[in-house]
């Protein structure tokens, strides 16, 4: 009996003591569940995007802005011979030495240069802050560093943002490990999982256009991939800023429009054809307070307020009718890291000619649009067509005669804007709808409230309702300038 009691006590003591000796280190998150996001030294909080745009994940914009994720973790049970290390991986928890490149020919984890804590002596739980650069996190996903430098790889740069091979999102692990004096993982690590997506979906195919009076219809074949969440439309010139074109050159069938403030009036190009119609001229001239410029076929150095309109002659031509060569939208190429075959290195530049982006491009696949964001239609309103099944959109409020160029780019659930579609261009022009034809042919008044004449002449309830109804309709009606 005494012997069995002694054995039981020994077993119990062993069970209690062994775990505490082999793995007492514990790492846990402290405070909020998500890391703060630091951009250019500013703490943006744990979310920098709307809830519908994967705010807790990593986007291309997060990466290219050199965002830092700031983790706050609590360490307890560490001894003087332990080290806290931060590792990243696609799938592993990095606790196996071979995953960290120790005793292996290749590593699947890589150190995050987050400021390892060497030999912390902690008697009571203590909180530390670790900064993880997004570029260091995502840059090694295709080719982890060699075993010899896996624990402390070189810092990644902007090219890390092109490391994602396809437009499908890539989940990643950030592992906080307690490493003992022998280099082994010990205790209870803390793992934070994060979804990274730095490649926008491919552009829609079959982009086409039609125009009407002050409108531009864009059509496309909706994407079927799982990454696409919606579409952005880019347009140049920006509606409402048509007069900001510079270096405009007149071609046959075009006319230069400038504000009256310039003290001049509009004029046709010397090569303007006789097919220009009074109808279009009237529309253009009456819709704008215009001034005149002498005609010239050479580029005109006007730097504001002037733009060309098509007057119905022979506009720029190509095989399919239009020659779309908008330099801004055409230079909006894509970045697609890791693309194999058919890639080219491209550089984009802004309107001033300043190079601002570079990367590899794989045509027809995912990527990132580098068109300046101000060319997104209704960019100031955060406009995005948030339905990937949509295949058309009508841009309204344009100026008849002005040639607009439009491209469509797909947007994923993280807010990445993919590469743009081929350009389409056209110019809105006056149309005659049924009502205009009917009225011009003598159709007369609508007669909506004619029944009021039956009454005694006083203001009836029906009359009030009729007036209110017409007022509401009038507010919505299209204002045509005739």
């Amino acid at each position, binding site marked *: 009996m005494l012997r069995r009691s002694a054995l039981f006590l020994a077993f119990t003591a062993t069970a209690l003591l062994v775990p505490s000796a082999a793995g007492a280190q514990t790492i846990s998150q402290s405070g909020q569940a998500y890391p703060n996001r630091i951009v250019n030294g500013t703490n943006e909080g744990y979310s920098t995007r709307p809830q519908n745009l994967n705010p807790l994940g990593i986007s291309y914009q997060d990466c290219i802005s050199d965002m830092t994720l700031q983790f706050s973790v609590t360490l307890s049970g560490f001894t003087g011979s332990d080290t806290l290390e931060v590792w990243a991986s696609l799938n592993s928890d990095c606790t196996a030495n071979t995953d960290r490149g120790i005793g292996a020919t290749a590593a699947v984890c890589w150190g995050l240069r987050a400021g390892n804590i060497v030999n912390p002596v902690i008697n009571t739980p203590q909180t530390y802050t670790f900064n993880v650069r997004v570029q260091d996190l995502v840059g090694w996903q295709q080719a982890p560093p060699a075993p010899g430098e896996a624990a402390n790889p070189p810092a990644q740069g902007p090219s890390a943002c092109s490391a994602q091979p396809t437009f499908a999102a890539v989940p990643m692990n950030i592992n906080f490990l307690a490493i003992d004096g022998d280099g082994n993982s010990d205790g209870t690590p803390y793992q934070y999982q994060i979804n990274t997506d730095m490649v926008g979906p491919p552009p829609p195919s079959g982009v086409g256009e039609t125009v009407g009076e002050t409108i531009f219809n864009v059509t496309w074949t909706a994407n079927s991939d799982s990454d696409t969440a919606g579409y952005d439309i880019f347009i140049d010139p920006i509606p409402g800023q048509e007069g900001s074109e510079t270096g405009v050159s007149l071609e046959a069938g075009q006319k230069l429009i400038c504000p009256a403030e310039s003290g001049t009036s509009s004029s046709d190009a010397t090569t303007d054809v006789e097919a220009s119609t009074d109808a279009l001229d009237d529309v253009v001239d009456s819709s704008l307070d215009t001034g005149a410029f002498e005609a010239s076929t050479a580029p005109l150095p006007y730097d504001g307020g002037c733009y060309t309109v098509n007057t119905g002659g022979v506009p720029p031509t190509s095989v399919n009718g239009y020659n779309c060569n908008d330099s801004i939208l055409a230079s909006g190429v894509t970045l697609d890291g890791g693309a194999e075959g058919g890639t080219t290195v491209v550089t984009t530049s802004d309107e001033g000619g300043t190079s601002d982006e570079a990367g590899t491009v794989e045509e027809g696949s995912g990527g990132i649009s580098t068109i300046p964001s101000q060319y997104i239609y209704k960019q100031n309103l955060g406009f995005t067509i948030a339905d990937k099944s949509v295949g058309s959109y009508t841009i*309204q409020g344009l100026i008849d005669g002005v040639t607009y160029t439009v491209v469509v780019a797909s947007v994923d659930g993280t807010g990445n804007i993919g590469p743009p579609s081929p350009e389409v261009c056209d110019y809105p022009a006056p*149309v*005659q709808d049924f009502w205009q034809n009917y009225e011009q042919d003598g159709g007369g*008044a609508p007669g*909506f409230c004619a029944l009021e004449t039956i009454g005694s002449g006083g203001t009836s309830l029906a009359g009030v309702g009729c007036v209110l109804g017409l007022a509401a309709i009038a507010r919505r009606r299209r204002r045509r300038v005739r």
Partner: protein
Amino acid sequence: MKRLVLAAAAGTAALVVATSARAQEDRQEVLSSHHKMYESAQHFAIELRFSPFTPAVDSNPSLHGATPFASTLHDSSRLMFQMEFDWQALRIPHFGTLGPGIGVGYTKMSGDAQFVVPHGPNQITNSGESTSLEIFPLYAVAVLRADVVWRELRVPLVPYAKLGLGYSIWRASNTVGTSDYAGQVGVGGSLGTEFGVGLAFNLNTFDEYSAKNFDESVGVNNTYAFAEYTRADLDGLGVQANPMRVGGQSWTFGMTVEF
């Protein structure tokens, strides 16, 4: 104006006669209910109506032969959907029913707006802007159904006729919204007469047992398929000056249930 009086008189007469005859009908129902225990009371009818429809817009004399409708929206027929609710207020012994009915409907016709001048290098004329005309017909009619041949001779055919007033609200629009030209907004209403004559085929004859169960369970006495010649002359009746002629004539097909 004369037609207005006639149409109004028809509707009013249907209402007045129906109201005054209501008590008499109730007494007849009591008697008939003793005779036909399986049949529930029948007071109403609902019609689902479908017709290929083309409004007679271009018939407006003020257009002087111009055809803005045909040239813009084309003359091909569009589907019009309507619903009608009838109150069979009066049962005329050995003849049928008489009572008022009201109906609503909807149809829309669209086309491409035309460029003022041929557009672009290919000189196309059809623009990418749509133009359309929506019509919401409303009408009130007196409905006379001669169901005697079905009820007494068991021949499953019921001829009927309708006469009353119609008022159609319409809206001309384009891609951007309601059309507007020279200060005239493309919304209006057109008043006129409504006339219809048709023949309904009683479907109960195919399966009288099911029809009886249908009556006992939900109170539907008869189910018909019908064909009807419908004509709406919405010319203003002298009250409106040249309203848009959004009426027209068409063949209407559909289903009727009496309950």
